[in-house]
């Protein structure tokens, strides 16, 4: 019987299986094992977590394939890795290595300031960041099988992720209620492909899973994003830059599942030690903001 690889259903379905879960950034096998043991649904293999990328400055690139390989060998859960925006070869290398999902990510320094990858051309699925429905729909149009808010990575500050999640969801609601004859103009205003907007209008929701990312630092942050309609949560620097990664990881996983059980979240948040040190977005210069990429 004919076997179809990398179909839309297979790529989007992979993200659907991650729903209600937490994807954690890790920089080595040891961290990957901690993430798996605490209940992460996947890990993102990186050379540095976003807050360290921010601190280090310079050009941030795809991780050393050795690190990605080490992480793939260490755990049985899916492994994701980041490629620079528009970097066809980094993406193809990660695909060839067999990573389960590629994040075409603004956390790394973009390789192309004009064009994103044509993600539909790959067998491996992609996740991309978005701040509004226009960005979301363009990425879906290019073939992204999963979305996430951009937030402001490596800041431990949830404010931007909240803004982006609210924005996308408000725009989805607006499009859903729109008359058919208003849709083309809305597509023009948003800079969104008309066909994708039409699908969103008909389904009343995005056609792919949308996770929260970029600033989640506590169990309450994760629960907040779920409350706002996220399908799941990426935690970048929030776990392994906290005082007690294992405790934080555990608590964030449980808070994501039981995001509206406030007694439980209160208990989970007790004596965790200090969260990662955060950054006020207002203190970031425009060129330091990764979300503009």
């Amino acid at each position, binding site marked *: 019987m004919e076997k179809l*690889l990398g179909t839309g259903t297979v790529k989007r379905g992979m993200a659907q299986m991650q729903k209600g*879960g937490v994807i954690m950034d890790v920089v080595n096998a040891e961290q990957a094992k901690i993430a798996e043991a605490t209940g992460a649904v996947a890990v993102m293999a990186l050379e540095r977590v976003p807050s360290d990328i921010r601190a280090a400055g310079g050009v941030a690139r795809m991780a050393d394939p050795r690190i990605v390989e080490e992480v793939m060998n260490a755990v049985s859960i899916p492994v994701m890795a980041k490629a620079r925006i528009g970097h066809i070869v980094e993406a193809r290398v990660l695909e060839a290595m067999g990573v389960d999902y590629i994040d075409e990510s603004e956390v790394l320094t973009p390789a192309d300031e004009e064009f994103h990858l044509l993600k539909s051309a790959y067998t491996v699925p992609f996740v991309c960041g978005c701040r509004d429905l226009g960005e979301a729909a363009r990425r879906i149009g290019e073939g992204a099988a999963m979305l996430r808010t951009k937030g402001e990575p490596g800041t431990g500050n949830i404010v931007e992720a909240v803004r982006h999640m609210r924005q996308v969801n408000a725009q989805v609601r607006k499009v859903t209620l729109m008359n058919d004859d208003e849709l083309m103009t809305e597509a023009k205003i948003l800079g969104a492909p008309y066909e994708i907007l039409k699908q969103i209008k008909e389904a009343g929701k995005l056609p792919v899973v949308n996770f929260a990312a970029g600033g989640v630092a506590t169990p309450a942050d994760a629960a907040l994003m779920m409350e706002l309609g996220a399908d799941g949560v990426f935690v970048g620097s929030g776990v392994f830059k906290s005082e007690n990664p294992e405790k934080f990881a555990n608590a964030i996983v449980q808070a994501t*599942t039981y995001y509206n059980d406030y007694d439980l979240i209160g208990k989970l948040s007790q004596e965790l030690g200090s969260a990662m040190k955060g950054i006020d977005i207002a203190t970031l210069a425009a060129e330091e903001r990764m979300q503009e990429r």
Partner: protein
Amino acid sequence: MKIGVLGLQGAVEEHIKQITALGLEGITIKQPEQLQEIDGLILPGGESTTISRLIHRYGFTDPIKKFAKSKKPIFGTCAGMVLLAKELSGSEDSHLGLMDICVKRNAFGRQRDSFEAKLDVKGIADPFTAVFIRAPYVESAVTHVEILATYNEHIVAARQEHLLVSSFHPELTGDTRFLELFVSMVTEYKKELIIS
């Protein structure tokens, strides 16, 4: 008829949508007590390590075993198959250990090897589009386990009395025929209940 979907992590909403499409009541199960309200339980696809951790952590293990012991039907898709297996290939661990099968995790490979294929399924008239995502398969099963479908000679759907498993994800398609198989098992259970 009420069918519950274990709602700890994974493709929960997709199953609920299919249950509702059949005109039945679908309930997301987040507390062990809720198991008492339902006639059949679906363990959805997701990450089996994550779901298993939450099952133990939130006291679902014994209530689910009790549910199975009372002969109420359980349907495990993908991760759900891993959770139901008595044995996991290459591992000392098993999770709920309810069904007499040995399951191999990520048996077809990584995500790039994930695929769709049309399958013949026993009890379903025309071929069924099966979506396999980092899917497991049944490596070996005891004789009283009925094999419902195979792909390349690997068992990808099976039934043992009131337990049903599939490697693939019927909930990711618009086709409700596999779910209907499970619903007929729940109907059977309810009939027997009335007789006894």
